Structures are given as structure tokens and as C-alpha cells.
């Protein structure tokens, strides 16, 4: 789960990381009012779950409150990578001496939270990694010890020369690790971590993604979910316990298991079609899930055919068949449905489908080829 910049900064502040003040506006009036209250130049920053906000024009320097009003009115409602800006952060503009990068994320290989820091902040860390990889220092945190003070210092030593800045950065790095752990994050970064002319460090931008598996025990973090910030179809899928990603094709896919779902999409492409979505109904056998899945798939106007590929394991074929039959009763579906159903309780499932007037395939290649044909027709 992604959270907004302003929310990540709230989490940072809880652990003591120096962040500038800031307030959220949802209207240009509010933005002006907040800028007035600061009485100085401000930044107006789009709050959306996407990188590249600056390049998209979603982050603006405003020399006074009336400029803040103007920019806020432009940014609010703006579309950034398919996401509509509903909120802006208004925050005093900082004088910047240097910009560094500090990030932590879960690394598969070392099986640990891993730091990446670079004295070259303010740009995409991918660019630094590509052009000057020696300007990045990495450290995996042994989960048995946590981040040790000398390790934080080792990272800070890579960012600055000045002993005071090193001390400040070392603290901030330790605090960032605490924030990472206490938030149940899978990724967090400060980019840039600036130094000011008076010799202080500040986190002036912040990103954080939360491990969804942590939310059950962190209600304060779970409350940060911004329902308005994710596409409606994906929210609906999440609430139904489904995993869904919308794509641009016209073959609607409904599969059990992420690997099989991806392989199904690949096979659609192999036979010359384009998948309309990734959708994994998971391992459960609840017919209601199938109904929800069909509602979501059919709400995409591009979809011209619906392709089921079910290999029953925990998922029972009869449950899926019941779900399909139930959904066709509840939803007015225009698109043809092609079904591959095999595995646990296969015969029962096929019987249910037959009685409702459906036929089914047992081979994955056959059903995908058929779906692609229908989508083209």
C-alpha cells in the first residue's frame, strides 16, 4: 500500500527525522490560506501515488500566496499517470545547499531491509545507479541486530564531510530505519535529503510503501489508506479479496493463481491477442468472488471476451462454476465467455456449467486460442 508524501513525512516526524512543516489543501482557497499563514515562498506539491510528479507539472515553487492559489488551482484535478490529483501539500520553500538520497527497502537476496544512500540526491536514484554506481553505498541490516550505530555512521560518512552534518545524518538514518520498521514498510525513501545554508539537514520529499501484510496489526498505518488515490476498479478488487491490474487489451482474464494468470496473459499475446487485465481470484472457493471478478472485468468497456482459466487445487471447480452461473444471472453481460476448468471437483463443475448452457475446455491452449479469435471477430 502506497501512502502520500505528507503521510510519509508524518511517519518520519514520529521517529524524529527533521521534516519541514506543511499542510494539505483540497482547494485553491485553502492553498492560498496556508501559504499566507507561512508568510514566505512555498512549494505546492501534488499528492498522488506516482513518481515523476515534478516532470508532470505537479510540483511548483510559489513566491507568494497568490501564486500558491494559482498553481494549486492548476494542479488540483490534474491527471498524473492516470491518477487524479485530489490534494496538494503546501510547505515553506527551503534554501537548499546540497541534495542527498537515502532509501531503505526489503531486498530479496540478502533477505533483509537494505539501505541505499547517495550524495547525489534530487534526481531518480535509477539514474545515479546507471551513470555513477560508485556514488551509491548499500548496507543490508541484519534483522537480528537492527541497524547498529556504527553502520548508520558508515552510511552518513558517505554523504557528508562535515562532522555536524555526519552526526545529523547518522541520527536521521537510524530514525529512518525505526520509521521503516514501526510503519511496517516495504520501501521508504528521502529524496532529497537537503542541507540548508545554516548547516541543518531536512527531508523535503518522502515516499513510503507499506507491506499490506502488516496492516492488520497497525491500525494507525492502515488508516492512512487514501481510497480516492487508487483506481476504482482496483479498489473494488482489493475489497473483494482479488488481485487486479487493468491493462489496455480486450481479452478479459479471470484466473486462479498469479503465476497461471501471468502465463495466461502471455499465451493470449502468443496467440495474437491483448489481455485486458491481470486478475487472480486467489485460492479461495467462494462463488461470490467469481461474481465480483466478473463485475470488475465487465466494467471495462474495452473487454470483448471473457476468458476463464481455472486449475482447481484449493479452488474447487464446482464453486467457480456456481459463481459463473450466479454472475450471469446478476450481471447483464454482453461479452462471450470461454471457460477452461480442470482439477479439483472438475466433473461437478462441468456438470453445473453444462446445465446452465456453457461448455468448457480442458486445455489452456485451446481456450486461449478461442478467446483471442472471439476478441478479433
Amino acid at each position, binding site marked *: 500500500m502506497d501512502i502520500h508524501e505528507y503521510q510519509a513525512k508524518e511517519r518520519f516526524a514520529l521517529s524524529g527525522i527533521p521534516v519541514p512543516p506543511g499542510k494539505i489543501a483540497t482547494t485553491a482557497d485553502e492553498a492560498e490560506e496556508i501559504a499566507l499563514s507561512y508568510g514566505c515562498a512555498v512549494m505546492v506539491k501534488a499528492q498522488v501515488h506516482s513518481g515523476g510528479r515534478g516532470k508532470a507539472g505537479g510540483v511548483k515553487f510559489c513566491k507568494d500566496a497568490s501564486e500558491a492559489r494559482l498553481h494549486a488551482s492548476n494542479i488540483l484535478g490534474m491527471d498524473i499517470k492516470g491518477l487524479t490529483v485530489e490534494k496538494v501539500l503546501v510547505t515553506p520553500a527551503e534554501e537548499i545547499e546540497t541534495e542527498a538520497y537515502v532509501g531503505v527497502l526489503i531486498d530479496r537476496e540478502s533477505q533483509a*531491509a537494505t539501505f541505499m544512500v547517495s550524495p547525489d540526491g534530487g534526481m531518480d536514484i*535509477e539514474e545515479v545507479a546507471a551513470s555513477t554506481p560508485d556514488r551509491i553505498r548499500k548496507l543490508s541490516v541484519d534483522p537480528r541486530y537492527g541497524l547498529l550505530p556504527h553502520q548508520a555512521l558508515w552510511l552518513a560518512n558517505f554523504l557528508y564531510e562535515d562532522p555536524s552534518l555526519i552526526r545529523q545524518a547518522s541520527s536521521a538514518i537510524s530514525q529512518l530505519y525505526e520509521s521503516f520498521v514501526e510503519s511496517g514498510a516495504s*520501501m521508504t525513501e528521502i529524496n532529497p535529503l537537503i542541507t540548508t545554508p545554516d548547516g541543518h539537514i531536512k527531508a523535503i520529499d518522502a515516499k513510503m510503501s507499506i507491506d499490506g501484510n502488516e496492516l492488520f496489526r497497525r491500525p494507525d498505518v492502515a488508516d492512512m489508506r487514501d481510497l480516492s488515490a487508487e483506481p476504482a476498479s482496483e479498489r473494488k478488487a482489493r475489497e473483494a479479496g482479488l488481485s487486479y491490474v487493468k491493462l489496455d487489451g480486450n481479452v478479459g482474464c479471470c484466473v486462479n493463481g498469479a503465476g497461471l494468470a501471468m502465463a495466461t496473459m502471455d499465451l493470449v499475446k502468443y496467440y495474437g491477442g491483448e489481455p485486458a487485465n491481470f486478475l487472480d481470484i486467489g485460492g479461495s472457493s467462494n462463488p461470490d468472488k467469481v461474481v465480483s471478478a466478473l463485475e470488475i472485468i465487465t466494467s471495462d468497456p474495452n473487454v470483448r471476451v471473457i476468458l476463464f482459466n481455472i*486449475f482447481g487445487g484449493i479452488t474447487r471447480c464446482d464453486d467457480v462454476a456456481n459463481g459463473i452461473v450466479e454472475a450471469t444471472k446478476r450481471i447483464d453481460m454482453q461479452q462471450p465467455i470461454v471457460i477452461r476448468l480442470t482439477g479439483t471437483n472438475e466433473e461437478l463443475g462441468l456438470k453445473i456449467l453444462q446445465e446452465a448452457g456453457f461448455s468448457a475446455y480442458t486445455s489452456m491452449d485451446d481456450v486461449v486460442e478461442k478467446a483471442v479469435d472471439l476478441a478479433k471477430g
Partner: protein
Amino acid sequence: MSIFIDDDTRLVVQGITGRDGSFHTSQMMEYGTRVVAGVTPGKGGQDFAGPGGEKVPIFNAMDEAVSKTGANTSVVYVPPAFAADAILEATDSGVSLVVAITEGVPVLDMARAHAFARDKGVRILGPNCPGLISPGKAKVGILPAQIVAEGPIGVVSRSGTLTYEAVFQLTSVGLGQTTCVGIGGDPLIGTNFIDCLEAFELDPGTEAVVMIGEIGGTDEQEAAVFVKERMSKPVVGFIAGQTAPPGRQMGHAGAIISGSAGTAEEKMKAFQDNGIAVAERPADIVSLIQDALK
């Protein structure tokens, strides 16, 4: 022959009285797996009624279950909130293999649990994995038994149902399996491709291996190098996710750490470069294996 589990497997089921735990315990027992104990705190002293009236004693804690029954393997069906604790308990109990089926375990909990397992010299499979099955010997987890058959092929996969697909096709043409292992799709897993490949290489019953990967991470690339450098047996590979959209979270930074974007193309290339035959479709796996065995 087989890897990790066989006729000597003595299984304890953690969370045996739960919905999933009880269902799959029956399934495993029906397949002939020796389920010697169950653990559910507070239900110690009761019995689990298996298929055919067989009784399995339930204990409050793993140490008791292991010391009283000689269990050497555990399988975890405990809900996510308690799964990491259950895995730690199993790792500390004397079993040598812990198969963690539970999906949704917090990643930072698993970072600690994996470190603990390394310290104790215990193998964790998973979490968020379908488990494994050695046809004709034992089944631990949730893999559907009806699709497997005894034979010379080792199967290792990051995904669940895609594994079924591959195994189903192998079995359809009479190619049985030594062991089918689902290593799980979580970011931090206890047993990776290389661990399984190494075991298959050492297993005299395995003649060829099917390796089924996915986009993300670098496990497949490292496994490919391992295959080239350390394996004498042929390996056929498949990667799911050629058409998957780039993830919106973690993809980039993770790629910098690992020095790889983890795309399907990259993984397929790593396979080809290291002598692994790559199946374009799941349906091609069978013919490639047949070629390899010629």
C-alpha cells in the same frame, strides 16, 4: 527417489484444528503421509480424527509434539497474525523442515524467522507456498495429489497453479515426478531455486528438472548460472509474466540493489545463455523434457 520429503517423513501439522489445517491434514493422510501430531495451543490432549478413523494426537506446543512423536517435518496452516511465531516455534523444536503454507505473513517477521532458521540449520519452505509432494511417498501442503505420478522429473516452481498446469501435462504424457516443490512467491522465502536444484542434482531418482519462474528478483538468473556450473542433469525452464505491466511499487529500487530489473526477457535470456531449454508456452515444457531425456 525424492527430495526433502519421503517415506521417513513424520509430519506435525501446526494449526491442525483450523479450517484449512483440518481439511488438508485429511488430504495429506489420504495420500499416505505419516501425520504423527498436530499442534493447536489450548487444545492439547484432544485428537484429530483423520480419514478412516485414524487418530492424530494434538499438543499445545511444538516441543512436546516433537519429543513425544519423533516428528521431523512441520507444516504451518496457522493464520497470518500468528504464522511467524509458529514458524519460529517449529524452527526451534527439532524438526529439520518447516513448510509454511500461510499467505500474508509480514515480510519483516519473515526476515527474522529466516535468520533464526539459518542460525538453527533448519530449512523453511515458503511462506506463501503450496508445499511439496513426492509422488507415492508423501505430500506436505496443498498440491493436488490427483495430478502427480511417480517418475524421473523434478519440478520446482515459484507459483502454485502454474505448477499444477506443468505437472498435469507431464503426468498426461506419462512423465512422473520425483518431487514437485512450490517455493512460494513472497519476497523473502526460505528455500530458493538453487536449493532445490542442488537437491535434485544429488537425488539419484531425478533425471531432468522443470524450473518455473516468474518476473521479479534475480533468483532465476542465479539459478541459471548454478545449472551451468554445477548441474549435470538437463533443466527445462519457463518464465511467467512476459506481458505483465511494470509494477508500480518497489520495482525500480529493488532492481538497483539486485542489479537487475527482473523482467521475463532477462530471465529467459539467462536461461538460454546457461544451457536451459526455455518453453515459450506451458504446453512446450513436455516436448522439451522429452527431448532432454532422449
